[in-house]
């Protein structure tokens, strides 16, 4: 039986992480499934009892999602329309039971290639806040998720928040599409998150498009984003996507689908995501 620490302050948690290796548990929805039929002998730091880590706050020039914020918190929060993709993703994470327990930050730290949270958060230009006794480091999400189950988090750090910059202007929207082989409780074959902002003339001012489950870590499509910016809404934004735009992806064959299939449907899903988003802006 391992150690179980459930501190009540972040400082206490960081001190513990500083002193020895601990497995961080928040919602438990990745911790327990990885230990089916195995002993629970990890030394655990349960961060769920720290007040102030849960919630989504408008901090003026950015929004902040605290470490213990659950997917249900995201679904229930009153948020501007550009959170639309993240909200849709939240509803696709497991079943309601998992949405009620699992956290946004835990999803990022677990770093599954099929993590539902990564594409929408990439499309929101998210950064993550990593805290340790040495201080707080803010890292773009792209630089945090490094690969399959690999992140830039040091063992003595914990993720204390996700930071989302506010888009310029007030005409922004987000969308998310997930493809799986059944309706609920399904791991993505491909998913797409996109956030688009328009200027007063009805032209795309900024766009971020990210695709998940098609590489070890979800990837943005900068080539496509560059092509879209400046286009007028109503011109079928999604039709701008080409195979070349998918170059950042490196899908694999697995039980859920072939690499060729993933490339093929990623194109379709990106197109549909952008066209749907355009219709709502």
């Amino acid at each position: 039986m391992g150690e179980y620490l459930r501190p009540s302050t972040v400082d206490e948690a960081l001190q513990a992480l500083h002193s020895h290796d601990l497995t961080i548990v928040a919602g438990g929805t990745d911790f327990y499934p990885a230990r089916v039929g195995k002993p629970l002998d990890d030394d655990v730091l349960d961060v769920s009892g720290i007040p102030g880590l849960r919630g989504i706050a408008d901090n003026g020039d950015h929004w902040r999602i605290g470490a213990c914020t659950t997917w249900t918190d995201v679904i229930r929060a009153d948020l501007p329309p550009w959170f639309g993709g993240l909200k849709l993703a939240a509803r696709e994470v497991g079943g309601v039971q998992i949405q009620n327990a699992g956290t946004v930050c835990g999803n990022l730290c677990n770093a599954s290639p099929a993590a539902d949270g990564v594409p929408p958060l990439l499309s929101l230009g998210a950064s993550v806040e990593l805290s340790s006794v040495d201080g707080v480091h803010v890292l773009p999400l792209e630089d945090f998720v490094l690969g399959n189950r690999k992140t830039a988090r040091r063992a003595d750090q914990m993720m204390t928040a996700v930071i989302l910059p506010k888009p310029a202007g007030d005409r922004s929207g987000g969308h998310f599409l997930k493809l799986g082989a059944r309706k609920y409780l399904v791991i993505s074959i491909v998913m797409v998150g996109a956030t688009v902002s328009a200027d007063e003339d009805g032209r795309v001012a900024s766009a971020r498009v990210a695709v998940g489950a098609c590489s070890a870590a979800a990837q943005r499509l900068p080539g496509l984003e560059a092509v879209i910016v400046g286009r007028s809404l109503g011109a079928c934004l999604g039709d701008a996507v080409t195979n070349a735009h998918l170059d950042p992806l490196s899908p694999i064959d697995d039980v859920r689908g072939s690499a060729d299939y993933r490339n093929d449907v990623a194109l379709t899903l990106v197109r549909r995501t952008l066209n749907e988003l355009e219709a709502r802006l």
Partner: protein
Amino acid sequence: MSEAPAFDPAIGLTVNGKAVSVAAPPIKRLADVLRDDLGLTGTKIGCNAGDCGACTVRLDGEQVCACMVPVGQAAGRRVETVEGLADGSVLNDLQAAFHNHGAAQCGICTPGMLMAAIDLLARNSSPTEAEVLDSLGGVLCRCTGYRKIVDAVLDLAGAAASQDGAVGARIAKIDGIPKVTGAERYGADAVPDGALWLRVVRTPHHSADFTIGDMGSLFANYPGLVRVLTAADVPFNGFGIYPDLKDQPVLADGVVRYRGEAVAALVGDRATVESIADGDLPIEYRPRPAVFDTEAARADGAPLVQADKPGNLLIEGGVVTGDADAALAESAAVADGSFETPFVEHAYIEPEAGWAERVGDRVEVHVTTQAPYMDRDETANVLGLVAEQVRIVPTACGGGFGGKLDLSVQPLVGLAAWLLDRPVVCVYHRPESMAASTKRHPSKIRAAFGCDEAGKLTAVTLDADFNTGAYASWGPTVAGRVPVHATGPYRVPNVETRGRAIFTNGPPSGAFRGFGVPQAAIAHETLMDDLAEARGIDRLEIRAINALRAGDATATGHVLEASVGLLPCLDALRPHWQAALQDTQSFNRRTDIRRGVGVGCMWYGIGNTSMSNPSTMRLGIARDGTLMFFNGAVDIGQGSNTILTQICAEALGVPVSRFRLVMGDTDRTADGGKTSASRQTFVSGKAAELAALDLRAKILRQVNAGPEATIHLDGPTIHVRDGGVDHRIDLETLSRGDDGLVLRGEGTFDPPTSPLDERGQGVPYATYGFAAQIAVVEVDLELGTTKPQKIVAAHDVGRAINPIQVEGQIHGGIAQGLGLALMEEYLPGRTENLHDYLIPTFGDVPEIDVIIVEDPEPLGPFGAKGVGEPGLVPTAPAILGAIRHAAGVRMTRVPALPHRLRAAILAKETRDG
């Protein structure tokens, strides 16, 4: 932040309104604390991974999976479990609705379903169907097909189902209340205090030799370890379904033949056996070449899975009548094709579990099972005991579908309890259940169907290779059943069909709802669609043209005298078919999503193939007037307890509510045979009817009453009213036997069949079930995804003893058939959990219309025959036909996963230019 004991002080929480305190490690799963520390076993564990939702409870008013909550997080919080729903003995509205709607079949998912539904209703007292689906979508059910659960949640105020009634009545399950209160006890729920735990060590290799070294240090390092069982400890180390095929070792003896095979069993206290990693054991494997595919297994020089089985061939069977090749050559149209299906996992939500204790020179095994008598005989054989030294007491069974017909924990806990003289329990975890247990046989089928100009079938050839995995299990059954059914439910004058069961290093393929017939149906129904297209005949009509009718002979030469209800099924479907075709035409103006309609037909021989499979049922009346029903047929959720009691009630003339049941206990019931082959309603039902008639005759004889007399039980008195005259039987004056009974009735029924000769000619089954289903689907052409929209299912069941249960079987079969068609594929080592292995969820099963056709079977009880398997068989063919109609592609390999369907669509677009 204290060290050992890490769980001091105790953790305080509120459970169902009561403050409780538990001394458990804070990382322990809340589900385990509820079950082990607080005795609240209503919360079920199906996967420990958040994949199934069976453990759903509410924590501070939010539904969570209790298997993923550290109990430390529950400190100071409110937990609500299924046990808190009822107010004493009064069900709440939701529980009552589940009970009345037949929303609980086996009941293992029911506590989780109820808690998820309560969570919704607490926020939204009148939800829409979509809201119900979203809120309950995190709980899997393998029995019901979800539709009756949705109905229940949407109909809280609905009228109560009748709780009493005889044949034909829509009564709620007579044993249904404990399923909605959490009181039902499954294999893992009533483990005696002080039981030792047994954990099976399983090989990660598909094929290997191995040696086990000295265990001395293991015992030194783990004082809680009591015994390690290996092959050397097993008196007769072989089991199997067939008397001459005891080829599967309880514990492998130096050779493993599939990944997940048992090599040793650790017995000790629970914490100890769970903390010993497989890698800590001194087992040395030397991998050997493995074969996974039937073609590779049959190739010259292929490694032999079992050394004494040349060519890796287990068995071969076939049916021949007329001259199929000649008839095909002369046919106006011939369709042929090759078809492929994978391993399919039963995915019952209750993993295998049970416990045993030694009682003198006997051993008693309490286990989740479909076959208590076979378990008894097999366990005794393995332990070197005579059958009577073993008692099997079935616990409630949390889903079987054929997977709990083979032995799992029985011989291991039986052996350990026998040797150690202490109660011993074993509960599989989910990946273990999936790796170790049997599967549906993968198949490779080549077939050709020919017809004349009018579309009448002229000939059928079919050749099927079934991958039976490493051990025989039910392989011979599949190889024997499929050739009989391979023509489909049609008149065919010239037939040549063959089935082979071939060993590979896969998991043993065993019994799974349909015994190979669902695989064959995909072939015959696709080819029927081909012939319809070739001859320009409507797809439903070509089936009607060829449908077997009373008086026809099957390919085995069996003349079907009665109860051949396929044509009435098709007649009932015709208006739905035509409406669906029309609707599809108008829908398909969109380009990226297309709708299609398909139809599938089936037949299914009820009971064992050309083998005796009797059932004996007993009734008795005690001196105080208690009416006992000793029923050896295991109810695994399909409703046989209720159905057989309704039959007894009708035959005896006494209300259902008067019967007290003893089910499946091998010491107290006679052998009802296995719950398999859709046989319990037909075979055990007939035996129950005969038992009731026997008891009735004995009662009437007491007072010389005539056959029209009515019987009324009134405590120690039976009132018999005959032609206006009242007779009284004072039970206290009758002599009582050792069994405490004063009157007894017994009935035995063995369906009349005959052996098949070398050309497969004979009477393999006494009767057949028939059905036809229509599927409407939408296919997203760009993504290759298929969304079933509706299923209309017409089933000839002879007589629906209880229409709620009949619908339940059809709904559940459809859900499994849908899974077979669209998503289910077991890959050893890769899909050993319920998130990589997909079964349909709430959102995947569409609206289902069930049309019950009753073409009575004279041999059956009140005309009834079976429906357990028929529900599944036509669904996949109907869905594949609908996909073809929608997308223009003929899918011959299931599951039609999105990437496979998309590839087929792209290939078609290339062909079409």
